[in-house]
């Protein structure tokens, strides 16, 4: 299953997911409290350092994940430059990069299953109130299983379109994709009912 977890082994991979998430929360709050350019530059350097510990390949992968941020960095510098407060703009831009990079670091070094476990653990107090949390785990499994299946069917439909029309596939292909999704939902629901449905735990 394709997740954003990096295959490059880092010392962070061994840390517990819950601990990393807690540290991320604290660090992000700290980032948003800082407002001097010196503090922000220091924080950014520290984040860069964290990425360089496992090596250049890992750091470059991390840089790749930051691609969507550059547009907003440019936007911030532009707007704050126009209003004459480029220093504030730089602080905000650095904070943005650092916060996103830190969050990405947790994602890159935590396995999907471990993160799901943390979520289920976090929801466990609800079990005492009588709320059933098991269906959520099953829902996650279902979505994860169905995305590649649906993608394959979507690609088949797009190919079928291309075989019949010289034009590029347009929005009309979304209807059969949706129909396929609805029909699959019906089949899975039937399979669930055949196995006893939801009242089995």
């Amino acid at each position, binding site marked *: 299953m394709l997740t954003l977890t990096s295959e490059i082994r880092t010392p962070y991979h061994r840390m517990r997911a819950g601990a990393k998430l807690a540290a991320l929360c604290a660090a992000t709050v700290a980032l948003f409290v800082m407002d001097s350019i010196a503090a922000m530059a220091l924080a950014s350097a520290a984040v860069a350092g964290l990425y360089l510990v496992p090596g250049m390949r890992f750091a470059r992968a991390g840089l790749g994940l930051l691609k969507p941020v550059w547009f907003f960095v440019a936007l911030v510098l532009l707007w*704050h430059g126009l209003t004459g407060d480029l220093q504030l703009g730089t602080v905000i831009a650095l904070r943005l990069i650092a916060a996103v990079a830190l969050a990405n670091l947790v*994602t890159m070094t935590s396995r999907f299953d471990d993160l799901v476990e943390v979520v289920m653990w976090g929801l466990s107090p609800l079990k005492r109130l009588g709320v059933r949390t098991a269906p959520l785990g099953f829902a996650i499994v279902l979505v994860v299983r169905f995305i590649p299946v649906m993608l394959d069917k979507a690609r088949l439909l797009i190919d079928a379109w291309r075989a019949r029309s010289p034009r590029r596939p347009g929005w009309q292909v979304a209807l059969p994709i949706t129909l396929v999704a609805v029909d699959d939902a019906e089949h899975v629901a039937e399979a669930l009912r055949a196995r006893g449905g939801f009242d089995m735990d």
Partner: protein
Amino acid sequence: MERQFTLIALFAALIAVLGLVPKFTLASGIPITAQGMGIMLCGTVLGARRGALAVLLFLGLVALGLPLLAGGRGGLGVFAGPTVGFLIGFPIAAFVTGWIMERMRGAPVFPAAIIAAVIGGILVLYIPGILGMVAMLELSVTQATLSMAPFIPGDLIKAGLAAALTAALYKARPSSVLSRA
């Protein structure tokens, strides 16, 4: 009950798939992805509560590290970035879209869906989206709104398509359109 559950799960998957199929580019050069349409569809087809649940499930998986946002984005980083307002707005938009859809049960599907998709999927979505940008980037509301304005024509097209899709789905599989159940 099982069908509602599987429909929620599969619409969550649908939002992902609509983000992964190729984007279109408007004449102005702004890329539009079909993902926003997926959010609207959750509302118009599944209704308020289940539509919002599907979107929340989708967002949960993005947070867990799956690259399901348009462009293969995902992970916790997107929640730390300037578009977090839009991410928070997604389930709210689906809820309002569904709520309007359910209230307009007496009207034919297409007009109800397009009104629901425009109000829920655009107006209600952009409010937290722009506020998020204001908070994260320390821009004024005007600056943030101007930055997002080029995307609105694409979103209007998406709302129309979502409405057309919902109407077609209602003809083909009426029992699956839970908002009309």
